[in-house]
């Protein structure tokens, strides 16, 4: 039973990691029906920024929570700027173009950002300091769940709640929902569609940056390629849950995390990806639009 619980919690952590990234995919898809392949790169840039800032701060003699706070803030701002700029450069000019064009543009942006970071920084793996505090009250459960895992879970939960509030109860959220339903109609009734789309990208990037900082601290190493792999898995999670649906992305991420964790724990890690993708195929056969796809749940 302990073993089951450990695998369950491990899958939950992995799922929260995927969820933080998957939210960005699903939000952008929900609003402009674009699969933003550069999203994983934004996550990677967030992690790199946090690494640079925290190294500088550590060099200046700071330590503890203030480093985490400052590094995360800079990473969030920086990533948000990247998300905003990527949309303006790569997607906005193609808004009236056929749907395939922005998709290609997104893949190009992803490759560009990866190589840009590789050349500007390094192609080697870099150690990432553990910025997350050790929670003392967790010590008695230390074998079950570590501090960083707990913090990742909590952050994902809080982000999810804030995101739901933002979308359900604010003016910007209302504009987002309107744009998602019918962009032209929203424009006619006075919604600034371009601004709304920019906001969507910024929010997605903020979540990705938070994910980047947390996950890099948890894993302890980063390189320019981490965004690609995490991005593919998060994208899978988003599709599994029904792309365009926010609760769907979270649900999909958890299911993916658990599947992988239990497949490794009870069968063999050789088949980790096999199980994950077999499940994806099965779900898509039964529900082509994903678990909570657009037919049942309102997008964004």
């Amino acid at each position, binding site marked *: 039973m302990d073993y089951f619980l450990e695998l369950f919690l491990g899958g939950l952590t992995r799922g929260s990691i995927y969820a933080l990234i998957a939210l960005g995919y699903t939000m952008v898809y929900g609003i402009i029906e674009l699969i933003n392949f550069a999203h994983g790169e934004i996550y990677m840039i967030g992690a790199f920024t946090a690494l640079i800032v925290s190294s500088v701060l550590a060099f200046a003699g700071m330590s503890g929570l203030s480093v985490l706070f400052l590094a995360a803030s800079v990473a969030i701002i920086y990533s948000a700027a990247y998300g905003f700029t990527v949309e303006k450069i790569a997607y906005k000019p193609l808004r009236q173009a056929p749907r395939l064009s922005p998709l290609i543009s997104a893949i190009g942006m992803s490759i560009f950002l990866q190589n840009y970071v590789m050349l500007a920084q390094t192609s080697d793996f870099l150690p990432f300091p553990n910025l997350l505090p050790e929670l003392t009250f967790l010590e008695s459960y230390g074998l079950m769940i570590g501090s960083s895992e707990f913090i990742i879970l909590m952050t994902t939960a809080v982000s999810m709640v804030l995101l739901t509030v933002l979308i359900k109860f604010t003016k910007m959220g209302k504009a987002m929902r309107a744009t998602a339903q019918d962009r032209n109609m929203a424009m006619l009734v006075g919604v600034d569609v371009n601004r709304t789309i920019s906001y969507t990208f910024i929010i997605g990037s903020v979540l990705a940056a938070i994910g980047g900082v947390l996950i890099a601290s948890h894993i302890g190493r980063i390189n320019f390629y981490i965004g690609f792999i995490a991005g593919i898995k998060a994208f899978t999670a988003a599709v599994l849950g029904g792309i365009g649906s926010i609760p769907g992305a979270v649900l999909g991420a958890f299911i993916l995390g658990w599947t992988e964790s239990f497949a*490794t724990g009870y069968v063999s890690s050789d088949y*980790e990806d096999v199980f994950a993708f077999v499940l994806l195929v099965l779900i898509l056969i039964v529900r082509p639009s994903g678990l909570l796809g657009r037919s049942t749940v309102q997008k964004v």
Partner: protein
Amino acid sequence: MKIRLSGRVFLSWLIIAGLAGLFAGPATAADTIKLGVAGSHSGDLASYGLPTKRAAELVAREFNAKGGVLGKKVEILSEDDVCKPEVATNTATKLVSRGAHVVLGHICSGATKTALGIYKDAGIVTMSSSATNPELTQSGKYPNFFRTIASDDAQAKLDADFAMNVLKVKKIAVLHDKGDYGKGLAEYARSFIEASKKAKVVVFEGITPGAVDYSAVVNKIKQSGAEAVIYGGYHPEASSIVIQMRKKKMDTIFISDDGVKDDTFIKVAGKAAEGVYASGPKDTTKNPLAIAAIAANKSTYNTDPGAFFLNGYAAAQALLNAIQKAKSTKYEAVAKALRTYPVDTPLGKIKFDKRGDAIGVGFSMYQVRNGVYVEVTAAAPAAAKKKK
């Protein structure tokens, strides 16, 4: 119509350029001895490939200073394969078409395996400084292949014997990264452990390289009660697994291979790296030729030698020396010279056996102590070399 016309003009230019290339090719090829250097020169495994490239450049410079080989200058043709099998075929084709006489490479076993067929068809002697997959020499499929590093089965035997005889563990988890190199090593380790009956393999699994975390597999190791882990693979995944094991307060012994015996591993895993064992090529840094090679590397490139530097240095020397001795760049002559004449290298005096393995090159066990790999002296290595 206009488009078609310009297309035709373009085509004719292409043909002219191609013909010019055909005539120019052999003319320059006669002037130099071309040493192809293939390996990972960029990407996440660049730290394995670049030292060999630097070594080749140093050796070429040294030979050129003494008047070259067969009276001709040595020229380095360097091509990057980023350690990917699918890129390596292109790399090999490129080197062949650029007229390489001998090739030093590739770095990773998987990439080497796919490239070797191309070199074989072109009749080019190929020597790797780091590809340790046993099949490359033992299958007999690649008579053109040589290497200055011992093969994985020797290394797997050392890892397994070290765990069973020196550390005296009874339950061992064997993991690998599903790659040619890691999986090969893990399978050999498992068969050695099972044959000896001194310990039990409690977990045998492949992990997914690059996954976001390895907590599930770490839980599984813990659950299995393994006292030691033998991991076949490279340092990025190894550091993740070690960090997660230590975070879970597991003190399971971690034993790995020369893919992990890299300073990047210590840098990334930090404190978690302490106490990790990794087998790697025998320490020959006290050899005067090795000291000279390392000093030349330092003064020319101002970096540490890095992984497989001395193996690369020895391979470049062996190749050029063989051409010198054979008085030809013909495949048969060079291959025969490699097997006949011993050459003084930083790894000691080496020549090659029938299969292409260097005689007298082996592995030792290292442990991370205070942030550096230190050679661990044990009785096991002696036994590891005999039975191959």
